[in-house]
């Protein structure tokens, strides 16, 4: 047991565990037909949490290794500028509808989540955690860190939102009789971030590109908009 308590604090142990579990989860997800409910991130974090509980390892000890992976989220968010730049021609051509779609989507997503949360009587910190739930996880984590929510919980809620969005979107298209591929992709990107975008690629390349575009624009807009909204609603 003395040996284990030493071994447990080796950062490289948790790096190996994280990468290995993620590879297995990705393989499993492909085998299960890429269903959003068994998203590799959801499966990975479930397995890793079980491992940590079984070995009586706390989160801080895990993060001795995990922090090195987490650190790369910052530059990865910056890197989202590249797909946005690649689609600049589309953005210019459809500037007004894209802006209206992403701004209204970002506002409806966070305000509706906060209002429902207030109605259920959730505390302020939970409301702040719910606010970025339609935003891509790296940005949502950063927003929750900044505005005073729970970053890890925000990441979890974002993933669940993504999975739900992939189920809700086809029903909405049917109800509103939407057939335009670009609209389908955009709606998925605004409401269900990266998971919606991955799902949009099933409709075609155009839908996928619009999904990615919507995800980037909504994420950036929400990051600027929430710090303004939060004092207004008195959180």
């Amino acid at each position, binding site marked *: 047991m003395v040996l284990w308590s030493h071994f447990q604090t080796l950062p490289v142990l948790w790096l190996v565990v994280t990468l290995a579990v993620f590879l297995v989860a990705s393989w499993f997800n492909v085998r299960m037909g890429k269903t959003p409910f068994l998203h590799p991130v959801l499966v990975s974090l479930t397995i890793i949490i079980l491992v940590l509980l079984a070995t009586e390892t706390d989160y801080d000890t895990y993060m001795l290794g995990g922090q090195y992976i987490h650190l790369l989220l910052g530059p990865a968010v910056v890197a989202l500028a590249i797909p946005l730049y690649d689609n600049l021609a589309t953005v210019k051509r459809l500037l007004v509808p894209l802006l209206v779609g992403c701004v*209204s989507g970002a506002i409806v997503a966070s305000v509706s989540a906060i209002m429902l949360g207030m109605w259920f009587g959730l505390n302020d910190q939970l409301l702040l955690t719910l606010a970025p739930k339609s935003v891509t996880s790296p940005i949502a984590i950063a927003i929750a860190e900044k505005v005073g929510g729970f970053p890890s919980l925000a990441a979890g809620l974002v993933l669940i939102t993504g999975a739900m969005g992939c189920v809700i979107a086809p029903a909405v298209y049917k109800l509103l009789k939407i057939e335009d591929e670009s609209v389908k992709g955009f709606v998925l990107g605004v409401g269900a971030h990266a998971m919606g975008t991955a799902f949009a690629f099933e409709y075609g390349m155009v839908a996928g590109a619009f999904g990615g575009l919507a995800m980037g624009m909504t994420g950036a807009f929400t990051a600027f908009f929430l710090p303004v909204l939060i004092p207004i609603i008195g959180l």
Partner: protein
Amino acid sequence: MVQGFLILLFCQLLGECLVTLLSVSIPGSVVGMMLLLVGLIVIKKVPDGLRSTSEGLLKILPLLLVPAGVGLMRYFGVLSAYWYQLLIILFVSTLVTMFVVATLLRLMSKEKHEEGH
């Protein structure tokens, strides 16, 4: 590779400096992303090193989310107390969001068609 990584980190650093100086609660990395986008628009191309590094990072983005996600283990208390409220909120809010965005986009594309006639 090193050059690309340096550009990304430098943009993030600039972003962090800006949000600290202006004392706003916007994530520094998001400001860094906007700065990089403006930079790319100005120089009108993506340097090769930057493209390969960025695409590599974005390809493993799901993996990068795992450590933060594992932090959920700290919130079992909150989750067990509020799980069904949270699920209802996420479902209703996502449904309303998608409905509103789809309706707006449909209205706008219809107007465009009518203008064309």
